[in-house]
């Protein structure tokens, strides 16, 4: 026993950093390094500053959605509608601007649509007691449909100068979209780790009924999580449209696929109650490096789908292995306590 305590005291600075990141995430860091090493060796342009910034820009939408998914999946829910909602939001913002509505109101109205979609998802889960995985499939279809309906199926070009500027503007060399992603990581990472709301998310993900009997309001927490992912997706979709100079109703297909893969890679458990924002950050970096790398080394598009499926399988398998490991450690610990 005393030996163990001494070891803890003697921990090196390096060890402390590792602990802060979390032992579980070492594999993830290793995977990121591996992906970078492989793609850099195949295409030496991969590891350049410009490409890294491009990578972050490409990751920004996925990153913001993944922030929402981190909350939802820890709370034991899921959302398959972000791809549709991002496209809808891009089209909606572009349309509102084209009708001459000023920049700020246009954005706010679009974000409101994200809130409405979140409320609808929460309503299906809380009131009709649907599984979120299936319920949000409804939203995925319906919202995608409305993305086409409101613009009659044609992409809406953007001419509003403020809006275009938002797509192009940089602060210290970093584009607005990346700043938004980084801000979301920091703010919502803090809320998840340090506040009542964050703690409630973990609690209901552990056991909804136990949390309710302990005086929490699980339905309210679930509703807030759905609103959060709705707003973040909407905002991401708007910025995406600004970058593309157009709102495209067919854009962002499979967005949720990448976001969920990133979150699970980052150590959030599909069974709920476990995970952290730091893990999601790493997961987002890994999946975007993977996707960008596949394009840069000229893997054919169809094979990219297969590869992404493989990555999701890897993520789910590692989630399973982590869970097994947790259960085993738990059993060992309780055997010790019982003996």
């Amino acid at each position, binding site marked *: 026993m005393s030996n163990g305590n001494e070891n803890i005291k003697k921990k090196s600075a390096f060890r402390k950093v590792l602990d802060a990141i979390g032992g579980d995430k070492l594999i993830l860091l290793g995977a990121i390094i591996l992906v970078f090493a492989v793609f850099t060796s195949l295409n030496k342009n991969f590891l350049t500053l410009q490409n890294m910034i491009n990578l972050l820009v490409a990751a920004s939408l996925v990153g913001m959605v993944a922030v929402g998914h981190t909350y939802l999946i820890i709370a034991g829910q899921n959302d398959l509608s972000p791809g549709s909602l991002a496209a809808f939001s891009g089209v909606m913002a572009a349309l509102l601007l084209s009708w001459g509505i000023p920049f700020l109101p246009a954005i706010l109205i679009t974000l409101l649509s994200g809130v409405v979609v979140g409320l609808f998802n929460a309503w299906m889960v809380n009131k009709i007691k649907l599984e979120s995985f299936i319920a949000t499939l409804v939203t995925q279809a319906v919202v995608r449909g409305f993305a086409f309906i409101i613009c009659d199926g044609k992409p809406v070009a953007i001419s509003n100068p403020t809006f275009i500027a938002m797509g192009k503007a940089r602060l210290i060399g970093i584009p607005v979209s990346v700043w938004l992603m980084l801000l979301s990581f920091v703010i919502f990472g803090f*809320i998840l780790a340090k506040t009542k709301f964050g703690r409630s998310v973990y609690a209901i993900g552990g056991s909804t009924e136990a949390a309710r009997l302990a005086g929490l309001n699980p339905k309210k927490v679930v509703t807030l999580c759905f609103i959060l992912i709705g707003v973040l997706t909407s905002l991401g979709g708007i910025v995406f449209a600004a970058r593309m100079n157009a709102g495209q109703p067919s854009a962002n297909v499979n967005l949720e696929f990448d976001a969920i893969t990133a979150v699970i890679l980052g150590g959030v458990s599909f069974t709920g109650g476990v995970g952290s924002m730091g893990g999601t950050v790493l997961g987002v970096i890994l999946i975007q490096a993977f996707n960008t790398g596949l394009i840069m080394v000229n893997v054919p598009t169809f094979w990219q789908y297969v590869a992404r499926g493989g990555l999701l399988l890897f993520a789910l398998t590692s989630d399973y292995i982590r869970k097994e490991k947790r259960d085993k450690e738990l059993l060992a610990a309780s055997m010790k306590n019982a003996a």
Partner: protein
Amino acid sequence: MKSVLEFREISKYFPGVKALDHICFQAYGGEVLAFLGENGAGKSTLLKVLNGDYRPDGGKYLLDGEEKNFNTPHEAIEEGISVIYQERQILLELSVAENIFLGKMPCNKFGVINTRKANEEATQIIKDFGLPIKPTTKVKDLSIAYQQMVEIMKAYSRENLKVICFDEPTASLSDAEIDCLFDIIQKLKSQGKIIIYVSHRMSEIQRIADKVAIFKDGCYIDTFKTGEISEQELIKKMVGRDLGDIYTKLDRNKEIGDVLLEAKDISSDYVKENSFILHKGEVLGFSGLVGAGRTELIRAIIGADKKRTGEVYLDGKKIENRSPKEAMENGIVLVPEDRKLQGILSNLSVKGNINISLMDKNANKFGIISKKKEEQEADEGIASFRIKTPSADKKIIELSGGNQQKCIVARGIATNPKVLILDEPTKGIDVGAKSEFYNMICEFAKQGLGVILISSELPEVIGLSDRIIVMKSLKISGEVSREEATEDKLLSLGMMGEA
């Protein structure tokens, strides 16, 4: 040759519990062996190990000298080991014959089922059992007792049946039905089967069992021939102590105060209209069979289930509890029945669990939780409830069951309640922790709390309560004072509705 079932050093662990601890004994063909022990003594766990539901963490068992290792109950059934559970495990939409021959319906060489032959064979088995049912009847149209018979017939239809275990088979049977079941058990016994019979009912054990194996806290104690040992002695062996002692030593509250809580005509979708009162400093016991509506009545009061009718008064003032949260804010706290699913938050630490109901108190106006306040609350809870944990940051699920339960009580008490409701607080908890809980309950009452104690363990309710309310079929069927309370009285109120 007589069949022999032998257990050698069987052990099984669950998070927080040592469910089976090196179990060693034998059971023989042509004998009825009863398992006797308190809740959580390990009887059901052992049956689950026997039929492949659980894998043992240590040890092995042999049937006729051959080591058996089953991965699923199905494999066990194939090898002639059947367990008849408390919950029926039959398919209600299928016929009696289809259930009996499930998975081995007679069929021709193309795999087409021969229903006529199945019905004929089923008729034979039903005749063997002497039951007035048809093989073509859908099982859902049968009474619970006959559904159970179908299950037994299903096991019986296996030609290689060697071991048949009954887990509390009479819990929902009438006297006549019990007679019928016992006739069948006698028949199986005369055929040389190994019969294991798990029950809490001492009279049944005396009547049907040849031997009694006693379990306590996951350990096998000993086997006795029925008739060679008195009931009192059996109970003493199974409890491992004189129960009376624990209760008489308790330092109970002598002063009971004014009315604290009044529940008036409370009903919900799950319980009929009921009224009762609770005084300050009183321990009010709730007795009755499982499913009598005790938990449901409490859930309606605290807003865990939607209340249909009725009013709740606390200190004479009408209160509304639309959710457990509101009940908690009003000063009523529940320690729920199912610790694993409704009590602990298994993904959180001891600290997180103790503090989960205190977030409003621990957070500043921006909702940011103070780490320091949480640590203080956790340390206080751990100290005052003597929770055994290496640190407050340990995952709660790593603790023993009793210590997990203490965390849940600490969580509730930290909210400064006026009424504390404990639903089966000592279920699955070892004896040492139990007496700690009993002292705790008396201490709460002394401090002026109103305590509601729901318990299926009669000695526990009798030993702790100042007054006992008995429920039957979703209604309060009677009230007994501490002086008049006997196990017989509570049982007859709970089962027949009259004393």
